[in-house]
C-alpha cells in the first residue's frame, strides 16, 4: 500500500509539473529514452542541466552588473541558456528566456534585469520541484509508472 501510495505521489507531482507548465513534452521524451542501459537517464540529464545552467546564470549575473550593458553578450548567453533549458523541457524558464531576449533586442536594460530575476525564480522553483520528484521516485522504487500526462 505504501508503495502504491508513493508511486501515486510521484505521479501527482509529475502531473502538477506538467499542468502548471513547468515541464513540457521534452521531459516525456527523456523518460522514453530511459531504459535498461540507462536506468537513471532522466536524472542524469537533469543533473547535467543544473550544472550547465548554473554556470550560465552566474555569467548572466556578472554581465548584467556591467555598465553599460553588453546586450549582444547577454543575448548570446541567454540563447545558450534557452537551448539548455529546452533540453529538459523547462517550459516556464524557456518562456522567460524568450522575454529576456526580446528586451535585449530592444536594448531595454531594466526589462532585462526584471526578466532575469523572474527567470531565476522560475528556475529555482523548477529545480526544487524536480528534486522532490526524483527523491520520491527513488524512494518509491522502480515501479513502472505508465502515467503520462496529457
Amino acid at each position: 500500500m505504501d508503495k502504491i501510495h508513493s508511486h501515486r505521489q510521484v505521479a501527482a507531482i509529475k502531473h502538477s509539473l506538467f499542468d502548471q507548465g513547468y515541464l513540457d513534452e521534452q521531459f516525456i521524451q527523456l523518460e522514453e529514452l530511459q531504459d535498461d542501459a540507462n536506468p537513471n537517464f532522466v536524472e542524469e540529464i537533469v543533473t547535467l542541466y543544473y550544472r550547465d545552467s548554473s554556470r550560465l546564470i552566474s555569467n548572466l549575473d556578472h554581465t548584467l552588473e556591467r555598465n553599460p550593458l553588453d546586450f549582444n553578450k547577454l543575448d548570446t548567453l541567454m540563447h545558450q541558456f534557452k537551448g539548455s533549458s529546452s533540453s529538459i523541457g523547462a517550459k516556464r524558464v524557456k518562456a522567460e528566456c524568450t522575454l529576456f531576449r526580446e528586451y535585449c533586442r530592444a536594448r531595454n536594460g531594466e526589462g532585462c534585469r526584471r526578466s532575469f530575476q523572474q527567470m531565476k525564480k522560475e528556475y529555482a522553483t523548477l529545480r526544487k520541484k524536480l528534486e522532490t520528484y526524483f527523491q520520491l521516485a527513488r524512494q518509491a522504487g522502480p515501479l513502472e509508472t505508465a502515467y503520462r500526462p496529457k
Partner: protein
Amino acid sequence: MDNGCFSSPRHDAFPAGLRVLVVDDDPTWLRILEKMLKKCLYEVTTCCLATEALKKLRERKDAYDIVISDVNMPDMDGFKLLEQVGLEMDLPVIMMSVDGETSRVMKGVQHGACDYLLKPIRMKELRNIWQHVFRKRMHEARDYESHEGFETLHLIMNGSDQSDDGNLFAVEEITSMKKRKDADNKHDDKELGDHSPTKKARVVWSVDLHQKFVKAVNQIGFDKVGPKKILDLMSVPWLTRENVASHLQKYRLYLSRLQKENEQKSSSSGIKHSDSPSKDTGSFSFLNTANNKQQNDVAIDSFSYSDGTSLLQMDGPSHESDLKGIVSEPTTEKRRTSTSDISDPKIPKSSQMTLNEPFASLESSEASHAVFDCTIPRQYSWSEFPKGPLKEEQKTIVQLEDSFSQLPLHGTQHHIQVDQSQSIASINSNPSITEKEVAPSIDTKPLYAGYKSDYMSPVSSIGSAVDTFPKQSKSVIVNDQSSQPIFTSNVSLKTQGFNVDCISDLDFYQMNLLMGGEAAASSPLEEDLNHFLLQSEWYNMNFGLQHIDMSEYYDPRFIAEAPSYFYDSADYSSVDQSLFIA
C-alpha cells in the same frame, strides 16, 4: 572498416549503423542526442567543439556518414563548419538550433545544410536523418550511372522502392562492381568496404568539363547565370541540370571566398610557388611553379610517398590559410593544355573538370603556375593531406584554396610526397598493376583529387602521370599497398614523351595536365606531378577521373587503382573544387 568488404554489416542493415557525428557545445543536448541516436541504432560520435569535429572528420574521411551540428558554438560559427564539411568531405550536414528564425534557417540552407532542426529535437526527427545520406548516394550513383552508361543502375534505382535497403545495395554494388571492373585491385575493395556507404559514383568534374562550365558561365555573365543556361551552353549530353546546379553553387561559394581573401590579401596567395611551403597549414597549391621546372625531373621522383600517402604537393603559394588554389595561369596554362589536350578524348565517363584555365584566373600571382599545365584533373579525395612536404614542383597544380591549407608546400622538393598514410594520393599505382596496365589505367586517375570546392585542384594527375608512364618504365609506382608508394621512379615523367598514349584514355586530363604543362615546361608531367601536393586538408580533390578518394585510401596504391577510382569517386564532392576555377 573492413577493407575489401563491400557489404559490411553496417551497410547491410542500413539505416542502422549509420555513423553520425554530433557537434554541440551544450553538454546536456549532446548527451540527449547521443542517446536518441543510439536508440535509432546509429553509431554515434560526439564532440563539443567544432574544431575538434573537423579534426575528427579529417582524420578519417570516410568514418562518418552524416554530421549534425549546432549553429551556435564558441570556437567556430556553425555555418562555417557546415561549409567546411560540405567542401572538404562532402557529407550531409544537419544544423540544429533553439532559434528557428527564418533568416537563420535560410542561412543554413544557403550554406548547404541538408536540414535544419529546431530544439527541442524529437526522436522521430532523428530517426529519418538517414534519408539525407541515402539521397546523396542516390544522386551520386545516378550521376555515375548517367555518364557511365550504367543502365542497370538506373533500372534498379527506378524500379525498386527507393527506401528499400535492397536498392541501396544495388547502387553500391553497381558502383563497386564498376570499380572492381576497372581495377582489379583489392584497393577497390578496401575503399569500398570502408566507405562504401559513402562512396558513390559521382560526376567527375574534369578539368575539361570545368573549363566548359566556366566558359559557359563567363559567356552568360556571372550575374545572369543559371544551371539551365549553363547546361545548354556546355552541351555535354550526359550532364544533368542538377549536376550543373550543384557545381555552380560550389563555384559561387568558392569565388566569394576567394574574393574575400583577395581583398584581404594583397599578395596573391596563389601561386607562388617558390618553394615556400609556407603553408604548412595546408595551403594547397598546386602550383606549378615555374621555378621548379628544373626540378621537374626530380619532382617526379619525389612522388614518393613516404608513408604511402601521397602528397601532392603543390608548391602552393603560401597562402595563409586558404589555398587559393588558383591556378591562375590561364594563359600559360593554356598553351600547355592545348598541347596536351588529352583530356578530351580520354576523359572517361566522368566529367572531368579541366582545371586548366579556369584556375588561372584565380590568383594569378604566379602565373607560372601553370598548374594547369597539367591540367590533370586530379581527383583526390584525400581525406587528409599529409602535411608532409608537399612539394610542388612544377606545374603547380592548382592551388587549392584554403581548405587545403594544409599543404605544406615545400617548394623545393618536387617530389610528391605522400606522407600521410591516410591520404593517398592516388598516385600510387597498385602494385597489381603492371606497367602496361598501369599506364593506361593509371593515367591520371590518381590525380584526381576530388577536392572540395575550394580547390582548384591541380589536377595534375601526377599520380597518374606517374603511373601512366609506362614509358617511363617505371613501373608505375609501386603501389603495393604496404610499401610506400614511390612514384619516384616511375614518375619520371620527365618524359616529355609522356605520351598520351600511355595514358590510356583515362581521363585524361591528367595527361593533359601532365602533358600540357609539359609542352611549355621543360619538365613534363613530372612537374605536374609534383605539384600535387596534397595537403591533408584537401581531401577531396576529386577531380575528374576517378575520384581517388583519398580519404579512403590510405595507401598509395590507390592510385593505381586507376580508372575505377575515378569513376567511382565516391566523394566527388570535390567537384566543387574544380569549380572554382574562376
